[in-house]
């Protein structure tokens, strides 16, 4: 069910996984993908929990890579779990030390489930350039979370500059319930929208993406306002009728749980619009494994970049040695 290997090698991990799969009678038959999680020691528990939730909908092989300190002897510790504490999935949690942290793919590549798509998820501040991380290069889909960056709005611009089709960001995933509500409000829409406003706590990347999305789809200007949060608190659409009449549709969510849907001349309605757990967000991300063009369009508008969808989906690894960089800096 579970075996821990100290100071081990990649091939021993492969053997241990095969043995555990046999012993566990292949509990997770029908693998849909391999999920590689790049995470720091302090966030491991949260990432594992989320991966477990997501794996319930998308049977996957979970490879958690924790890169520890560089200045130490090279070493690999691994924990192989099949149907154990991580639920009915097969998982390998790896801790890498020393120069091995710069070559994690040497351990991860032979562990990928044969011919299944690979999704790499960074649960932490996203890298500046995904191609410098070998675990990003081997993935078909790359999931970052700009909300965890020190400056999320700047991180969004970095993501746009570094974008390749197949990239997505959990800040975008968080917009889905909002976008779903807005789209259904639009199903019964008979007036054109002249402008819109999105309010959120300062520096919220999801608000920037909602604004980008509205602006991309409706070709309008979207004003951004600051509020006390949590997260996105209001989206308002200003409608302009043919005879100059004006209406407002607004969805506001001051408490992060319940939204109020209001339209001029109509009674207000309450509906649940909860902030979702990390696991639910990840599960949505794994639902589709092709490039998300709508995200690319919204990111373009949110950051003022262009031509994101026409970039190549392939990345080649860019080698950057922190030791050399440190030496050069001196």
């Amino acid at each position, binding site marked *: 069910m579970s075996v821990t290997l100290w100071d081990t090698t990649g091939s021993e991990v492969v053997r241990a996984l095969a043995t555990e799969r046999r012993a566990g009678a292949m509990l997770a038959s029908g693998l849909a993908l391999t999920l590689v999680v790049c995470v720091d020691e302090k966030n491991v528990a949260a990432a594992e929990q989320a991966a477990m939730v997501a794996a319930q909908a998308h049977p996957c092989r979970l490879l958690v890579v924790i890169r520890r300190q560089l200045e130490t002897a090279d070493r690999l510790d691994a924990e192989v779990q099949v149907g154990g504490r991580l639920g009915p999935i097969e998982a390998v949690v790896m801790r890498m030390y020393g120069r091995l942290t710069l070559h994690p793919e040497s351990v991860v590549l032979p562990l990928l489930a044969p011919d299944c798509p690979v999704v790499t998820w960074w649960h932490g501040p996203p890298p500046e350039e995904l191609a410098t991380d070998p675990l990003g290069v081997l993935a078909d889909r790359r999931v970052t979370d700009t909300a965890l960056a020190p400056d999320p709005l700047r991180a969004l611009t970095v993501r746009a500059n570094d974008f390749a089709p197949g990239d997505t960001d959990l800040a975008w995933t968080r917009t889905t319930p909002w976008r779903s509500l807005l789209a259904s409000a639009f*199903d019964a829409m008979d007036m054109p929208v002249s402008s819109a406003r999105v309010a959120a706590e300062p520096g919220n990347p999801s608000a920037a993406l909602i604004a980008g999305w509205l602006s991309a789809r409706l070709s309008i200007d979207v004003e951004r306002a600051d509020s006390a949060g949590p997260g996105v608190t209001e989206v308002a659409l200003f409608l302009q009728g043919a005879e100059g009449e004006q209406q407002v549709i607004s969805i506001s969510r001051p408490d992060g749980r319940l939204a109020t849907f209001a339209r001029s001349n109509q009674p207000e309605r309450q509906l649940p619009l*909860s902030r979702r757990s990390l696991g639910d967000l990840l599960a949505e991300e794994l639902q589709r494994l092709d490039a*998300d063009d709508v995200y690319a369009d919204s990111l373009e508008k949110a950051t003022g970049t262009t031509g994101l969808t026409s970039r190549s989906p392939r990345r080649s690894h860019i080698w950057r040695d922190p030791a050399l960089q440190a030496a050069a800096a001196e």
Partner: protein
Amino acid sequence: MDARNLLRDPRDRRLPRVPDPCALVVFGVTGDLARKKLIPAVYDLGNRGLLPPGFVLLGFARRDWGDGDFEQLARRAAEQHARTEFRADVWQRLADSIRFVPGSFDEDDAFDQLDKTLIELEESHGIAGNAAFYLSIPPVAFPTVLKQLDRTRMADSRQRGGFRRVVVEKPFGHDLTSSRELNKLVDTVFTPADVFRIDHYLGKETVQNLLALRFANTLFEPVWNSNYVDSVQITMAEDVGIEGRAAFYDAAGAGRDVLQNHLLQLLALTAMEEPVSFDAESLRTEKHKVLKAVSLPSDLDDFTVRGQYEQGWLGGTRVCGYLDEEGIPAGSTTETYAAVRLGVETRRWAGVPFYLRTGKRLPRRVTEIAVVFKRAPHLPFAHTDTAELGNNQLVIRVQPDEGITLRFGSKVPGSAMEIRQVSMDFLYGAAFTESSPEAYERLLLDVLLGDKTLFPDHVEVEASWRVIDPLEEFWHGRRPERYRAGEWGPHGADEMLAREGRTWRRP
């Protein structure tokens, strides 16, 4: 959805389909089905954000209740039976739009009150006349309720603006004539396009996956015909008895209760040609073609079997016989088990028998479709080497353990060439099935969206009755064979397959 909605982009697969603001009116809302399936399904849809901002649930039943009592019942139902986690704030929002109207189906006043309440709710919730009426009631009450809906003009979409849809549960009549009458009545009160007949099997993921398996792959379709297929076995077994539905069940029996709808629908999906597209119309065309091509055996005595369970032991407890169940008349000849060999008279299936069986108080609850392939025409092995080799089988497990099993011959490790049958399993994973939408949730959503793909049409229902009617006529007045509760049906069923040199697969 409307192509003019700029916010909906076909590339945007994250946005779920959410119905327009609408009301769901449930008749018989205090019944078992409503409590165990419908109300939990509504809650789950709400929890997943799939209900429109303007949504009301209006219950109608003969109870001296106010809105509060009904809300209590609905809340308990959602707490106990919902698939997703129960959250008080989601419920609170739903509870605000739940109303109850008491009354019996023959009271004009009650229906006038219902109509009035519906109109009020539509105004207060910004619903542009959209309503779906769910008839979760015994079939005898259908005409009364439909006539009331007609009288109050609640069913008239032109008068109300928006859509007016009706959802009916099986049985759709008890024979061809009665089903036609029922269809005529429903179709005149509503329009045929607005009638949704629920066969909850079609809402199951695995059943939809059968279409994906057949038509999204190249591997299976080339052998999906009489050149390669020896026979098809479709099984729906239940371990439960009649569960307090004595009056209904004794009049219907396994043939009308299950064979006519679930099993024939599964047969149609298994045997049909590829639809030109995956829309309701094309799918119905293909299913209807197959149902029209279904033939009964010429010798009904040899190739149909009826059974009735006697007392026995099942799952470690003693259970009583059918005749001892409460409310079953002594000497009832109703069958609780039915098996039949059908043929499909098309080029693809000529000569391939389709064995259908269903029964109550069988050892376990299981529904599956087993496609049994022919033996290889020549085996270059010694006869003794292949003694344990059976037919290749592809089994679609509809419930439980949703998934697919492939059975084929493989060498036994060792120095001798011995070949034995092995199973390769594809599981949706125990956890996956838990979180995949419950059939009612999917079907209810489709009703509100107006998507009829997963609903059998009245032509299919009538075609099915055309298959079942001669059977029922032949069975009428005959005594069913006895089988012990906890057995895989009467011996006659085994003999029926043995006559053609086959055996039932043990599911």
